[in-house]
C-alpha cells in the first residue's frame, strides 16, 4: 500500500506519466526537450531512461506540427501526452489546439475520440517577463471542448494527471513553475506534499475546500492556492476566518462548491494570477451574481488578478501586478470592513 513520502509536483507528474506508460503501451510523450533534458520543468524526468526514445520523443521547435501530430495519433486511438514548454507559446499552435483538438469530437457528433493530454508550464514570479510568465488558462476555458486542469500541489497533480491520461477527451494540464519544487526556482512549500506510490485518480470538476472558514470565501487555483493559504493563516491571527477553495479544474467547473461556500460566508474574494479582465475572476463573480436570489452577500465581490498589463520584467513591477500573499490578505481585510450590498427585497 501507499507509503508516506513527499514528492515535488514535478516528480509527481513524471511518476504519474511513468505509471500510465507502464500500464498502457499506447501512451507516449512528445515535445521540446522532454527526452534528454527530462522537460525544462522536470515533468518528464526519467522517462527517456525508462521507456526509450520511441516513446519519449524530442521534437523540433514546431509546435503546430507536433501538437497536430498528437491529435492525429489520438484520433487513431493512441494516448499522446504533448508538452508545450510554456503556455506563452500557445500563439504559434492555437489553431491545432482550439479548432481541431477541442472541436473534432463535437463536429463528429461524438464519433471521434481524442484521448490526449497537452501539458504546459504557467506562471510568473521569477522575472521572466511578458512572454514567459503568463497563466492564460482562462483563454482555454473560454473556448469549448478542452478540459482545463490546474493543480496546486503534488498529490493533486499526480491524481489529476492519471485522470487526464485515462480520459477519452483532450485535457490541458497547466503546471505553475513556482510550485513544481524545482531545485532552481523559489517555490511554495505547501505544494510538495505526500504522494502515494501507487496510481490513483483525482476526479475532474470537484473543487477542494483546502481550508474551512466562516467569514469569507477565497476562490483560487494553482500557485495562488498556496498564497491564499498563507494569507488565511495571517488573517486567522487577526480573527478573520477565511475559507479557501482550490478549483483544481476550470472545465469542468465546480460551481456548486463555490456557491455553497459563498452562501455560507456571504463574502467572495477571487484570487487569480491570470489577467484580471474577461477571465476566471469575472466568471466566478458572475456565478454568484446570477444567484443573488439565493445568496445573501455581506459585501461586494472582490477580484484580484494581473490588472490588464503584460507581465513586466523588473522585480518591483512584477511583484506589484501579480497578487501576493499580502495583497490577498489586504483584500480580505478590505472586504471584511466594506459596506454591505444595498440590494434589498423589492
Amino acid at each position: 500500500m501507499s507509503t508516506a513520502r513527499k514528492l515535488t509536483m514535478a516528480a509527481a507528474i513524471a511518476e504519474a506519466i511513468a505509471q500510465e506508460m507502464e500500464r498502457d503501451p499506447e501512451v507516449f510523450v512528445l515535445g521540446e526537450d522532454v527526452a534528454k533534458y527530462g522537460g525544462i520543468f522536470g515533468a518528464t524526468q526519467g522517462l527517456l531512461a525508462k521507456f526509450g526514445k520511441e516513446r519519449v520523443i524530442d521534437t523540433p521547435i514546431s509546435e503546430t506540427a507536433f501538437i497536430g501530430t498528437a491529435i492525429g495519433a489520438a484520433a487513431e486511438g493512441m494516448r499522446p501526452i504533448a508538452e508545450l514548454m510554456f503556455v506563452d507559446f500557445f500563439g504559434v499552435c492555437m489553431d491545432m489546439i482550439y479548432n481541431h483538438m477541442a472541436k473534432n469530437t463535437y463536429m463528429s457528433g461524438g464519433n471521434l475520440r481524442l484521448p490526449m493530454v497537452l501539458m504546459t508550464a504557467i506562471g510568473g514570479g521569477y522575472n521572466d517577463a511578458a512572454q514567459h510568465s503568463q497563466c492564460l488558462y482562462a483563454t482555454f476555458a473560454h473556448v469549448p471542448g478542452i478540459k482545463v486542469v490546474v493543480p496546486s500541489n503534488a498529490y493533486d497533480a499526480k491524481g489529476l494527471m492519471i485522470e487526464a491520461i485515462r480520459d477519452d477527451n483532450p485535457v490541458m494540464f497547466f503546471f505553475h513553475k513556482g510550485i513544481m519544487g524545482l531545485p532552481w526556482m523559489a517555490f511554495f512549500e505547501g505544494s510538495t506534499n505526500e504522494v502515494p506510490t501507487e496510481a490513483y485518480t483525482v476526479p475532474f470538476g470537484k473543487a477542494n475546500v483546502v481550508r474551512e472558514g466562516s467569514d469569507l470565501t477565497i476562490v483560487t487555483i494553482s500557485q495562488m492556492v498556496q498564497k491564499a493559504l498563507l494569507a488565511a493563516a495571517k488573517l486567522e491571527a487577526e480573527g478573520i476566518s477565511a475559507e479557501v477553495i482550490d478549483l483544481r479544474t476550470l472545465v469542468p467547473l465546480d460551481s456548486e462548491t463555490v456557491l455553497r461556500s459563498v452562501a455560507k460566508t456571504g463574502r467572495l474574494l477571487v484570487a487569480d494570477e491570470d489577467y484580471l479582465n474577461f477571465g476566471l475572476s469575472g466568471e466566478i463573480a458572475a456565478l454568484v451574481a446570477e444567484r443573488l436570489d439565493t445568496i445573501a452577500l455581506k459585501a461586494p465581490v472582490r477580484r484580484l488578478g494581473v490588472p490588464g498589463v503584460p507581465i513586466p520584467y523588473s522585480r518591483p513591477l512584477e511583484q506589484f501586478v501579480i497578487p501576493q500573499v499580502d495583497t490577498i490578505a489586504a483584500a480580505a481585510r478590505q472586504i471584511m470592513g466594506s459596506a454591505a450590498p444595498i440590494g434589498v427585497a423589492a
Partner: protein
Amino acid sequence: MEPTRDQLLWMYETMALIRLYEETMAKVYLEGKLPPHIQKGLAFDIGGGPVPGEMHLAAGQEPVAVGVCAHLHEHDTVVGTHRPHHFAIAKGVPLDTMTAEMFGKVTGLGQGKGGHMHLFDPAHKFSCSGIIGASLPPACGAALAAKMRGKDWVSVAFFGDGAANQGSFHESLNLAALWKLPVIFVCEDNKYAISVEKVDSTSVPWNADRAAAYGIPGVLVERNDALEVFQAAGAAIARARRGEGPTLIEVKTDRYLGHFQGDPEVYRPKGETTELRKNDPIPVLAAQLRRMGLLDDAGEAAVAARVAGQVEAAYAFARASAYPQPEDALRHVFV
C-alpha cells in the same frame, strides 16, 4: 506501377460519381437561396435552403482524389481540406451519411454538427477541416501511430496550392522527413486560393520543388490526369509502406466552379473554365478505357446509371432524414 483493370474502372466510376455528386450539390445548394424566397434586398442568401453555409465544390479536381485513393486500404488515413467531397468519396465515406451531414440532419456523419467542411468518418479513416493547412499535422500523427504500432499503414494529407504557404506545411514536412513517417503530402494546384493566383502567393513555380528543403522526393504531376496521379501516388505510397518516409506530390489540376458557390469570380479571366473543361479528365479516362477495351457504350451507360442511382439515393436519404433536436446542440462536446 500499372493500375489493374479493377483500379482503372474504379477510378473512372469514382470520378463520374464525384462529378455528378458535385454538380447535383451545386443545384441543391441554390434551393431556398434566391429571390423571392429570401430577405428583401439580397441577391443570394448563404444561410438559406436545405444546405446553408459555405460550399466548396471540387468538380475538375477528381483525378487527385482517385489517383491517390486507388492505392489506399481501409486502415489508411486520409485528411482532406475545406473542399473535401472528392477525397471523402474516393476514400469510401458513405454518400448517404455524408450528404445527410451537409443537410444538417441527425443521420449525418456528425449528427449535423459538422457540416460540409467538417466530415468525420473514423470508420473509413477520413477527416477534413475548414482551416487552410490544417490537414498536414494530423496526417503526420496518423502516420506516427502506424509506425509506432509496426503497421505498414500510410496516411495522406491533401492540401491546396494556397495552403502550401502556411507554416504548417513546413513544420509537417520537416517532421515527417525527420521521423521517416509514412505520409504522402498531396498538393492540389488549381492555380487559385480564392481570388489570389498562385503566382501572386508562391515564390517558386512548383511546390514539388520544395521537397528538396526536407530531403524527400518531390513529384510534379503535370497533367490533370488520373493515371498520372496514380503513377506518382503509387510510387510514393509504396515507399512509405516500406518505411522510407514521406513524399510530396503536386498535381496541376483545374477548378471548374467558383471558389465557393456564389463566388462572383471577378478575378478570373472570362472563358477560362470553358477552356479548362476541354481537358476534362473524365472523358479523357473514358477514352483511354475504350482504347484498352475496358469500356464501351453499354459500360459507360451502366456506370452513369449506377452513379445516378447512388447520388439520387444519397440526396433522398438526406432529405428524408430528420433534423436533430435543438437541445442536442449541448451534447458531444466531450465523449
